[in-house]
């Protein structure tokens, strides 16, 4: 290209295709340059996905065919309304899925990616940059939704013997709705970023994503699905079918597709044309408006957006307050700093909230069981049921330990790694490695023990446990978690990674796994030492209090060794951290 042509810059379509081609080239080059093992893994994954797609299609075909049988109607009642609403439900799911996922992807691509300065200063139309980013955001999501939505809709068509035109139209409608959803998502991103800084939105989004996904995945355990009656199933399906509201364009799309499959051309054409025109209009309007908002939002973000949302301490006099005597000032400083940074960074909070949610769910299940194991079909021998009952009596302690252990994986295991690129401040300061290790130990141990105790106390109150038992369990939890803290902290030092960009890269994989494995071996072993003497005491005609005391001495000694020895072993590694 001549210099004159280059200075004139690229046209809109050429620029979009150049930018998209660049993206494709980057992905392909990444694949070509990856290791043979990675290439093989990718190919296997691709094959698995294709097989799953086929399997999902076949399963949908067979299951949806079955729902039309009288036998099924006898079990689940009339599922006709549910089947009729299925296309609208799938399309609705796809639309909402793309809307939410595109929001996150677009936020990253438009505001947080490092290439925007370069692209906006290049001699290409800004609209081309915007559209290419939008398409890059949609394509992976569209693929993902295709993975779930298409086999189901195609299975419905195959089970119902639909007209062949149904199948290409399903794809066309999915694409149109995806474009509309992505357009609306971009508009939502622009509006949000005008109020809240992009980085903060990304943090909140990550936090909500983790919390909601854990809640959704675990809440099923609270439902008694195995005791669901036929009437309840019918009512549940009717409730789902109600989501197919007649006024919704998604419903028009679903019904339009079904009418097309059934050969009711006029009604199908009317509904589908309306949906396609509406989608195109929504996409065009969203694109134009959000494009305008983008440039002003970008400029505004650079200038003032961040400052407004910065954290503010409670009050200045407290900030320079007094120290606790007897604890080295450097240790207090590191603890206070970690407490502040952990609390303020939502990326950390999303990692910390997981054990809390799991703990609550397991605690509800434990309290609901009333300490009595589920008899099932009543075929289990009496001794097994008694053993289960005894095991359940330690359920509160087990939950408290599980929550503490999960927290320690993050707080102790990543205590050093979380320093990241700011570690130079600590390393160049006059801080003894022992003080640093002690501070990291305490900042991990105190919240884990406090949360474990909190759960244990609540569960003890709800289950009306005796004071002696509760006190014993509290000591066991405190000591066990101290040992787990030492183990996790030591592995955290060995696997520390200060050069992470994403918090998920904080600890090197093998060390994270080893840490989890060793602490998983440690916990039941130390529990056996704590509880063994108490359980054996009646058999050996020893008073119960003596058994408890022996357990505390044995388990306590083992826990304290694990709390102190591993950090001491790795202490010499601390001065060398961050040199890699």
């Amino acid at each position: 290209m001549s210099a004159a042509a280059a200075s004139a810059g690229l046209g809109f379509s050429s620029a979009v295709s150049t930018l998209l081609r660049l993206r494709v080239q980057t992905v392909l080059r990444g694949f070509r340059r990856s290791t043979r093992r990675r290439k093989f893994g990718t190919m296997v994954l691709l094959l698995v996905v294709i097989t799953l797609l086929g399997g999902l299609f076949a399963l949908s075909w067979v299951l949806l065919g079955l729902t039309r049988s009288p036998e099924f109607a006898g079990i689940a009642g009339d599922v006709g309304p549910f089947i009729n609403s299925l296309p609208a439900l799938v399309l609705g799911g796809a639309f909402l899925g793309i809307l939410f996922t595109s929001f996150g992807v677009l936020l990253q691509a438009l505001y947080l990616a490092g290439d925007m300065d370069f692209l906006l200063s290049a001699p290409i139309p800004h609209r081309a940059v915007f559209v290419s980013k939008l398409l890059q955001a949609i394509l992976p999501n569209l693929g993902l939704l295709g993975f779930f939505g298409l086999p189901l809709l195609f299975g419905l068509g195959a089970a119902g013997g639909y007209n062949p035109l149904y199948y290409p139209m399903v794809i066309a409608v999915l694409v149109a709705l995806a474009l509309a959803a992505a357009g609306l998502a971009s508009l939502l991103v622009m509006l949000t970023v005008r109020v809240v800084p992009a980085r903060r939105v990304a943090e909140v989004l990550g936090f909500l994503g983790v919390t909601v996904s854990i809640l959704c995945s675990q809440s099923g355990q609270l439902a008694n699905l195995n005791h669901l009656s036929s009437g309840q199933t019918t009512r549940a399906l009717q409730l789902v079918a109600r989501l197919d509201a007649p006024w919704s364009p998604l419903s028009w799309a679903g019904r339009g597709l079904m009418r097309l499959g059934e050969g009711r051309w006029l009604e199908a054409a009317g509904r589908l044309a309306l949906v396609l025109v509406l989608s195109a209009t929504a996409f065009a309007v969203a694109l134009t408006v959000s494009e305008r908002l983008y440039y002003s939002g970008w400029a505004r973000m650079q200038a003032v957006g961040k400052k407004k949302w910065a954290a503010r301490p409670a009050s200045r006099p407290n900030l320079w307050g007094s120290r606790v005597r007897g604890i080295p000032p450097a240790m207090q400083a590191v603890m206070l700093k970690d407490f502040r940074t952990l609390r303020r960074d939502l990326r950390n909070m999303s990692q910390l909230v997981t054990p809390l949610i799991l703990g609550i769910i397991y605690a509800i299940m434990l309290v609901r069981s009333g300490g009595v194991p589920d008899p099932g079909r009543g075929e289990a021998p009496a001794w097994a049921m008694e053993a289960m009952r005894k095991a359940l009596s330690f359920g509160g302690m087990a939950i408290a330990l599980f929550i503490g252990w999960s927290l320690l994986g993050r707080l102790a295991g990543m205590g050093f790694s979380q320093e990241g690129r700011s570690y130079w401040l600590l390393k160049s300061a006059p801080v003894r490695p022992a003080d640093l290790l002690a501070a990291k130990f305490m900042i991990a141990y105190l919240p884990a023990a406090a949360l474990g105790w909190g759960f244990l106390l609540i569960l003890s109150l709800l289950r009306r446990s005796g004071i002696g038992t509760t006190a014993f369990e509290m000591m066991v939890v405190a000591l066990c978690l101290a040992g787990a803290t030492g183990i996790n902290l030591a592995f955290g030092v060995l696997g520390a990674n200060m050069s992470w960009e994403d918090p998920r890269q904080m600890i090197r994989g093998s060390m994270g796994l080893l840490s989890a494995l060793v602490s998983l071996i440690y916990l039941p072993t130390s529990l056996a030492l704590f509880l063994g003497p108490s359980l054996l005491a009646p058999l050996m005609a020893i008073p119960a209090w003596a058994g408890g005391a022996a357990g505390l001495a044995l388990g306590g000694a083992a826990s304290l060794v694990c709390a102190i020895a591993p950090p001491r072993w790795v202490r010499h590694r601390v001065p060398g951290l961050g040199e890699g």
Partner: protein
Amino acid sequence: MESPSPLLETQHLVKRYGDKAAVDDVSLQVYPGEIFGFLGPNGAGKTTTIRMIVGLLNPTSGSVHVAGYDVQSEPVKAKATTGFVPDEPNLYPKLTGRELLQFVGDLYGLERAQVARRGEDLLRMFDLAEAGDDTIDSYSHGMRQKTALAAALVHDPRVLLLDEPTVGLDPRSARLIKDILRQMAGRGAAVFLSTHILEIAEHMCDRIGIIDHGRLIAMGTMDDLRGQGRKEASLEDIFLSLTGGAEYAGIAEVLG
């Protein structure tokens, strides 16, 4: 008269990464009240040398003494006398500027009241008082650079090391830093300054060291450097003739 002991001294300092010597036998001294300029092309070993002096990197061989303390064997005592400003001001993004100064003051074991007084003075001096309660992730690069400098000054160090401190700063802030460095040297501190801005080095530094490919190839006052058989008038000429950049002057003609 006996010359004072150096506040900063490196002896045969070496840092190797595999076969490559990033720093190769660097020996230098910086005396109380002196501003020492450390120059070199990109990748010459400036940052590695500084990181070894402040204890961020362990040398392969050789030693570093700061205020008489060996950085390897007495790191806590050596670090207690040192202030450091890195080239990249990576600070805890979720702390406020004011909290960061408090944190650093605590790390150096200062009294809270002293940290409070000095912290507020530094924030005011660097024009950060208003933003002092905002988290650092909302700061611009220049604000972070100034915060890093304030953090390095909280404990009033006897040895101050700065790696490219004026990058990303506006002229007013750059001037402020120069004034602070002069004041610190005036009060008897040793200042070790790495910079690419030769004008700063020429006008501010009492002595200059030039490093290239890990080796210290020249060291002395401006007059010493001119006297070492190099008659060039400016530091830029001396630097280019020593590090081999003068031959690239013709490139400008091609680009033009």
